[in-house]
């Protein structure tokens, strides 16, 4: 039988870091402009897919880039920075290609229906919103918000991955990395779904009124991730 209390006491810092990572992912999801199915028909602002898909795309890229950096260095700051940048690049590419589709394919200007003026460029928005839609495309404020959100998500994801890999155990290295990455992916999905329930599936970015609801999701994600983190640390630490 494994010494559960001993492992929790020994790795308590890792449990806290994993929980912090989960909360960062939950906050990050609130910043990514997710439009869902309406955006896929250019009837809402944001990228035309669900929160989970966007968060997973950005987060998994973050894990890959963090893992790659882990090959060459053991510096925590570099590994986490690499994961953050990876996720930011991924979401930027997704948003810019989506933007081309909206502008050149659908033929609509990027416009937000939630604010009258773009909070960053100060451009007028309401004149360009087509009737019957809730905006379309990805305006500058949403784009920048999305990059920040993906950065927070990638930061959280690589923090989880790094903390899991800092747990001492007797596993062969290949198995250890496999288990840690699948565990980080599982946590990523849970922490992407909880905030997407909070925002009701669509959000434009930090200028969206729904963004003010983020403390609730961060609290929910704190509880859920803490529970999962204890299980993960006990499972991996006991091996």
């Amino acid at each position: 039988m494994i010494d559960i209390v001993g492992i929790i006491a020994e790795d308590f810092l890792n449990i806290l870091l994993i929980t912090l990572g989960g909360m960062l992912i939950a906050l990050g999801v609130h910043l990514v402009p997710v439009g869902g199915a309406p955006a896929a028909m250019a009837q809402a602002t944001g990228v035309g897919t669900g929160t989970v898909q966007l968060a997973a795309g950005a987060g998994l890229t973050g894990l890959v880039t963090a893992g790659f950096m882990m090959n060459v260095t053991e510096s925590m700051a570099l590994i986490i920075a690499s994961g953050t940048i990876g996720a930011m690049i991924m979401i930027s590419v997704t948003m810019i290609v989506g933007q081309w589709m909206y502008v050149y394919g659908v033929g609509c200007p990027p416009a937000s229906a939630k604010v009258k003026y773009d909070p960053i460029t100060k451009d007028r928005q309401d004149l360009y919103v087509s009737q019957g839609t809730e905006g379309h495309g990805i305006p500058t404020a949403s784009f920048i918000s999305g990059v920040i959100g993906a950065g927070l998500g990638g930061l959280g994801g690589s923090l989880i991955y790094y903390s899991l890999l800092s747990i001492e155990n007797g596993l062969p290295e290949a198995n250890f990395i496999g288990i840690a990455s699948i565990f980080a992916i599982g946590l990523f999905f849970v922490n992407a779904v909880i905030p997407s329930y909070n925002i009701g599936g669509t959000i434009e970015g930090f200028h969206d009124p729904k963004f003010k609801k983020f403390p609730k999701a961060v609290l929910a994600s704190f509880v859920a991730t803490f529970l999962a983190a204890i299980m993960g640390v006990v499972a991996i630490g006991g091996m």
Partner: protein
Amino acid sequence: MSAGGGGGGAHEAIPQNKLIAFGVIGGLVGIYAAYFLVDIIGPSMSFLGALGAICSIVWGASAVRRVANYGLGTGVPSIGMLALGIGVIATTFGLAVGGIAGPLVALVFASLIGLVVGMLGNKVLNMGIPIMVQSTTEIAAAGALTIVGLSTSMIGTFMFFDEIVNGVVVAQGVASGVMTTGYIAVIFIAGGLAILHPYNANLGPDEKQDRTLACAFEKGAIAMILAGIVATITPFASGSITILIGIAIWYVSFSGYYKRVKRDAFMVTGSGLLPSKEELE
């Protein structure tokens, strides 16, 4: 909003309690039968694990159907990914600490996280879905059993670690056989899709329970065939029987699904081929 659903309880011909029993008992019996019979009879019995996974997939799809009918606001896929996300956490924990009781421990802890997430959804996020707590618990548990079942049929055991006698690996464990090799990604997507897709594909005012569940059987069979393909290249499980039985289940369930689609459709008619360029001019 992207999710469908009429904002009320779903009509059901088969009560959910029966489907819970079907999923839990069928899933556990399949997994344990595969584990013991692979030891006694041989690797060819590993297909039983996938049969157990199909039982839990049908249960999970039915729970998704019930909760998503209220309109989640996020689209149905999110809850399927939640199920497998929680499932993979609980499975890693359960199989690593549980030993022979691994699938049971995974089931219990997946239900626990599902319960907490469901309560957070209603109490903290104010989703206001009456069956949210029960459904998230069920979906998470079904996700965990799906992962354990498909893993068992891929490598012939649900033991987490390799069994090593005198320095020779006599049986591959889930850690090295499924997780390190990356087959867990196949399980994640095939199992997740099997749980989320049936309701996502059939939702609408004319959605019927038997049609959705027939679709779930069909998706479960596809996951079984995929597990069989993986099993062909692992030494301690037999792939061919899993693939054959998977194809048979797929054929039967797809015919059943198609029959129900024709039953529920107003009219099924052939549209013919697209007109040629000359005909259009």
